[in-house]
């Protein structure tokens, strides 16, 4: 019964609508029924078909105006949701801040941005002579995007950026595969379903997706929506892949977190802990490092890992994930003779991470995850889920300590 002109009109109208495909389809269906009802009535009154079709469309109203009005309603809905969320958000942030202050190992003293800059500068000046210029020594000095990292990193950064966007989920019984098409089109990122894995887990590609979420990040919206259906996502091979949590756990990802600003925070006055002499804290140790030993630091920095933590932590090449030892023990002054020592800043930070985020997944307790530190860059090999929480924790620390950059820089 449907007439091609109706379809053209509806196609135009729905193209103008900035809503989820599922919602778009529902609007089209609702309007199609209306147009057909009107057409039936006009035909019954004896009007020729072509004329009746035009009249029905003419009466329906201007597609652009209608689309604009419907968009306004959607916007109002979003605003209302955001209002609700913002109250909850302020309370949550305040709570998170308090929590981080309470957990912060070096006490509550923080430093302002100026001091952090001074520390950074000092490090550059004290770089040992045989080492190449800072820009080459440290590829992470500048955030990834501006240093033209490799293609995979760029692709991952793009997906991460998309995941930070605000979600607009309004799915009612949308088949899983259509849901994926929507995410792909709307956020302009490659998304695939790990078909075999999902099929093995008895999850059909037609599983209906029901989700109405707005005002939160795409990341959270996906976690919630997929989580309800016993699924999750990973960023893998430059693609956002939807799979089972079990499969996601087998995928280890290595990322580098730039924690130099966090590690440059001063200890509270009166702290008895000696800094930078025990060999663990890469950041401070490097400043006093004898020139000839500079290049050797790389030995301990490799994120590969595998051997159990060394107890002394002073041997060159101590393994990553070595909370007790610190990756760079060997290069620090006094590194070649064992001595009584307290944990360095970096070790404290690593300990904070491994005890706060999924404590049972780190290699020191037999889990698959590793963490090591190199000059304030913390290399973590973990699953996506853990990475997200590590990043969140570090961001919270940045916020709580009021360091210059509000978010930790990440390279993956």
């Amino acid at each position: 019964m449907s007439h091609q002109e109706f379809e053209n009109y509806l196609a135009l109208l729905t193209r103008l609508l900035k809503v989820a495909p599922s919602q778009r389809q529902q609007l089209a269906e609702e309007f199609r029924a209306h147009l057909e009802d009107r057409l039936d009535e006009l035909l019954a009154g004896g009007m020729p078909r072509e004329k009746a079709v035009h009249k029905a469309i003419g009466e329906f109203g201007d597609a652009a105006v209608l689309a604009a009005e419907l968009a306004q309603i959607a916007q109002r809905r979003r605003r209302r949701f955001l209002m609700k969320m913002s109250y909850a958000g302020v309370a949550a942030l305040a709570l998170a801040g308090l929590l981080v202050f309470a957990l912060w190992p070096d006490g509550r003293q923080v430093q302002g941005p100026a001091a952090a800059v001074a520390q950074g500068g000092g490090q550059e000046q004290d770089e040992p002579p045989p080492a190449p210029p800072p820009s080459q020594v440290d590829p992470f000095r500048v955030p990834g995007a501006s240093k033209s990292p490799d293609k995979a990193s760029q692709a991952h950064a793009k997906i991460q950026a998309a995941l930070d966007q605000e979600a607009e989920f309004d799915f009612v019984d949308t088949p899983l595969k259509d849901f994926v098409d929507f995410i792909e089109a709307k956020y302009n990122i490659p998304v695939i379903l790990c078909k075999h894995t999902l099929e093995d887990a008895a999850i059909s590609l037609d599983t209906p997706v029901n989700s109405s979420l707005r005002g939160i990040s795409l990341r959270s919206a996906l976690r919630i929506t997929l989580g309800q259906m016993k699924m999750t996502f990973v960023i893998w091979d430059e693609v956002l892949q939807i799979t089972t949590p079990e499969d996601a756990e087998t995928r280890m990802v290595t990322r580098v977190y730039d924690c130099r600003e966090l590690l440059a925070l001063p200890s509270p006055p009166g702290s008895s802990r000696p800094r930078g002499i025990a060999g663990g804290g890469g950041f401070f140790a490097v400043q006093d490092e004898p020139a000839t030993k500079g290049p050797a630091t790389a030995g301990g920095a490799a994120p590969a890992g595998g051997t159990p933590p060394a107890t002394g932590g002073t041997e060159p090449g101590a393994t990553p994930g070595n909370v007790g030892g610190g990756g760079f023990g060997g290069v620090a002054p006094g590194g070649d003779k064992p001595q009584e020592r307290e944990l360095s800043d970096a070790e404290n930070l690593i300990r904070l991470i491994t005890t706060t985020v999924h404590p049972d997944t780190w290699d020191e307790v037999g889990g698959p995850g590793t963490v090591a530190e190199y000059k304030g860059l913390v290399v973590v090999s973990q699953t996506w889920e853990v990475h997200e929480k590590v990043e969140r924790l570090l961001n919270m620390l940045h916020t709580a300590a009021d360091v210059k950059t509000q978010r930790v820089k990440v390279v993956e």
Partner: protein
Amino acid sequence: MPDKFQRELLRGSLDLMVLSVLAGGKKYGYLIQKQLRETSDQRVDLQAGTLYPILHKLEDDKLIKSSWDEETGRKRKWYELTAAGRRRLSAQAAEWLDYAECIRRLLAVEWKSA
């Protein structure tokens, strides 16, 4: 046949009209439009482009709810009043009747003496 009401005059009362039509039971957009037209002697003739945003807004406000049904041979979205919609209708209808009465009295005095 008297002229259609001016848009400005209708603007503040369209929601109320739609709620009122739905008080008689579940209806889909086309029926709502038709009933408004017929009950008003063609003087309230809402374009679909005006009616549907109203319906969607009322649904967002949870004053009406919708469901899909194909029983009439065509897949249609049916709307009906919620309890909140019913309350809103009673309150708004009473207010409008008051208002209309007030206008009537005002006009009876001022306009006739003009």
